[in-house]
């Protein structure tokens, strides 16, 4: 019992947090954001089945998300007309849409992995997105398809009119999907998919057909993406051709990569963080997509393991009890890092204000300080902040590096003893 608590304790805590969150943050905006996070978590985890476990970088994963969503939306309309499918099981129709599309397109794309696969996925994504406007009977044309989620056929008797009820439905599906996807990584298919990712030639020599393995992994990933699409359909009650396009595909790639592809829980972190950033940052600053791009490039260059990679990097240090030394070094580098970030942020905000706001002469307000964007003082201050911050950041990097070396030495020494 204690063993299970230790291993899965954090998951139990997470489940409790999921249940309690909308009661703590009970504004309409927060509940809506939490619902979006739930859907994004399933979507990102399904994407990681492809990228992290299968080694297949796909630029068109939103196709299965969107196709699942469209099928689920049509199903919702059929349920409204009297079809005997309870609302709670409508995401399964989304999953069905995902599976069918995933099987067909997966078989077509998986002959090779790597860049060829990425290009095929891009081509299929653009193909479906472009043909969505040409097939208005399924995709609804410019207006998309809409439905009413307050139907009579439900399993639990809720009406699902309120956002919080939809949130709990999403959480229930999310927990089921997380469990299923986690278990899938332990199945033989999951393991062989890892093998095909790492060394397809060798896997073939052991006797596994790389193409079949990849297609199966792809189909399963498309299934879960379709479930996410079905939940999207229930949550928003409208779905348009944008959902199969390049924007959600790019989004899920960012979420998964920022969260970390090497660990199972990475995409969960990434999905939650990116959804939070997208919804809150977009309201604060016009430059949120630029910050996004910079964060993404920074992660690719300096933290390719993502957030999960950064966290797990500290796991052995935590276990050895040496975290305090590292924390001291991090505290030293945090100050110049903050200064550098403030300088960059001020520069970006000034430029955005000058070029994109309605009235550039109006004073800009940052942290309660109001100033005119064209004033040379603003530019000088931000450039100075950047310069000073960068200079001390380089010094701080040396401190952090030294601290890591000491910690590594100590752990090695402890291991030898």
């Amino acid at each position, binding site marked *: 019992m204690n063993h299970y608590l230790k291993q899965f304790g954090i998951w139990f805590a997470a489940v409790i947090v999921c249940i309690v969150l909308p009661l703590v943050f009970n504004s309409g905006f927060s509940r809506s954001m939490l619902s979006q996070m739930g859907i994004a978590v399933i979507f990102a985890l399904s994407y990681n089945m492809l990228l992290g476990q299968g080694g297949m*970088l796909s630029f068109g994963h939103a196709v299965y998300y969107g196709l699942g969503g469209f099928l689920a939306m049509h199903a919702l309309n059929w349920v409204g007309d009297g079809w005997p499918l309870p609302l709670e099981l409508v995401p399964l129709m989304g999953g069905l849409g995902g599976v069918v599309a995933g099987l067909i397109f997966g078989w*077509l*794309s998986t*002959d*090779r992995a*790597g*860049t*060829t696969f*990425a*290009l*095929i996925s*891009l*081509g*299929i994504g*653009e*193909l479906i997105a*472009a*043909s969505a406007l*040409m*097939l*208005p*009977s*399924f995709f609804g044309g410019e207006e998309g398809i809409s439905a009413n989620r307050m139907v009579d056929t439900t399993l639990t008797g809720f009406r699902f009119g309120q956002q919080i009820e939809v949130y709990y439905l999403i959480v229930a599906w999310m927990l089921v999907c997380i469990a299923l996807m986690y278990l899938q990584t332990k199945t033989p298919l999951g393991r062989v998919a890892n093998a095909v990712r790492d060394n397809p030639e060798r896997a073939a020599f052991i006797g596994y057909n790389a193409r079949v393995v990849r297609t199966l992994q792809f189909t399963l990933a498309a299934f879960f993406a379709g479930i996410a699409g079905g939940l999207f359909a229930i949550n928003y009650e409208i779905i348009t051709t944008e959902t199969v396009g*390049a924007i959600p595909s*790019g989004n899920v*790639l960012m979420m998964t*990569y920022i969260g970390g592809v090497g660990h199972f829980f990475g995409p969960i972190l990434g999905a939650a963080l990116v959804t939070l950033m997208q919804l809150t940052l977009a309201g604060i600053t016009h*430059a949120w*997509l*630029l910050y*996004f*791009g*910079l964060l*993404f*490039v920074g992660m*690719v*260059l300096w933290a*390719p393991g993502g957030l999960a990679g950064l966290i797990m990097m500290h796991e052995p240090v935590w276990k050895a009890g040496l975290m305090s030394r590292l924390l001291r070094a991090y505290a030293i580098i945090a100050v110049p890092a903050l200064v550098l970030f403030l300088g960059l942020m001020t520069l*970006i905000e000034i*430029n*955005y204000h000058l*070029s*994109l706001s309605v009235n550039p002469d109006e004073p800009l307000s940052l942290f309660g300080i109001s100033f005119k964007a064209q004033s040379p003082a603003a530019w000088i201050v931000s450039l100075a902040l950047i310069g000073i911050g960068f200079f001390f950041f380089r010094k701080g990097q040396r401190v952090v590096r030294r601290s890591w070396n000491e910690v590594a030495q100590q752990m090695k020494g402890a291991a030898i003893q």
Partner: protein
Amino acid sequence: MLEYVLFSLLNSLVLGMLLFMLSSGLTLIFSMMGVLNFAHASFYMLGAYFGYQISTWIGFWPALVIAPLLVGGLGALVERYGLRSLHKYGHVAELLFTVGLFYIIEESVNLIWGRNAVMYPIPTILDFPIFKLLGAEVSAYRMFMLLISMAMFVGLYLVLTRTRIGLIIQAALTHPDGVNALGHNVPAVFMLVFGGGSALAGLAGVIGGIFLITEPAMAATLGPIVFVVIVVGGMGSLTGAFVASLLLAAIQTFAVGIEYSLTDILALFGWQVDTSGFFRDIWRIQLSHTGPILPYLFMVLMLMFRPKGLMGKRES
């Protein structure tokens, strides 16, 4: 009918040569370094915007020279300080880096020049009809575009076949490891090729930005088509990229004028088709409406049946 064919040919020639200018750089980069530069169309956009800005400050002809050099310099910097440190992480990391670069460049363009299209007009010296073809006028600017693209193609061909560095690049297109083993400074060659490819994209931007609209979304619209070109043309083959550019431009230009649907074609054979039901859209859609998807359909079919492309020398 003749008018339609002739004008479509002319338009597809102009568009195809523009597409070739864009994709030649990308083919070189992709074939040599294995890096699919997602931000290549962004360099095209930067070329258009730099061209616009320098035209407004100095003039069009200096812009034609300076803007590609600026974009090429930027490309070389990106390679030196960004991609070089990512070689050890593999192609996926390099690809993702260029994806992030795509977003950053697009937002920076939004930041500096705003979200609307800018007025980048045809230079007055080229704004006249140069000849009449079957009663309709052909603009001199299109001929100018054709001239520049041809000059670029010839110049690229001469550099690649008649200079020493060109021979090294050609060798590295098909056997990059072998060239490295022979002792050539492959990282410097990579930087040169990346910068050169970006400069070509910038040049395409300077003249294409006038022909097509100059707006922040131009990279996202033209980007996927360029990928289709290099996939269809094949890895390691500039001639393939040339043929593929012309082919794809022709497909798109000709399709726009054909208003037949599957139902019409079947009716020619006397088959009546029931156009209600689940698949009614597929029966009734006209070829002229399928323009956007034809390149991608072509690419998917090509990747399924002949992943080497039309004239590719390597598979990956």
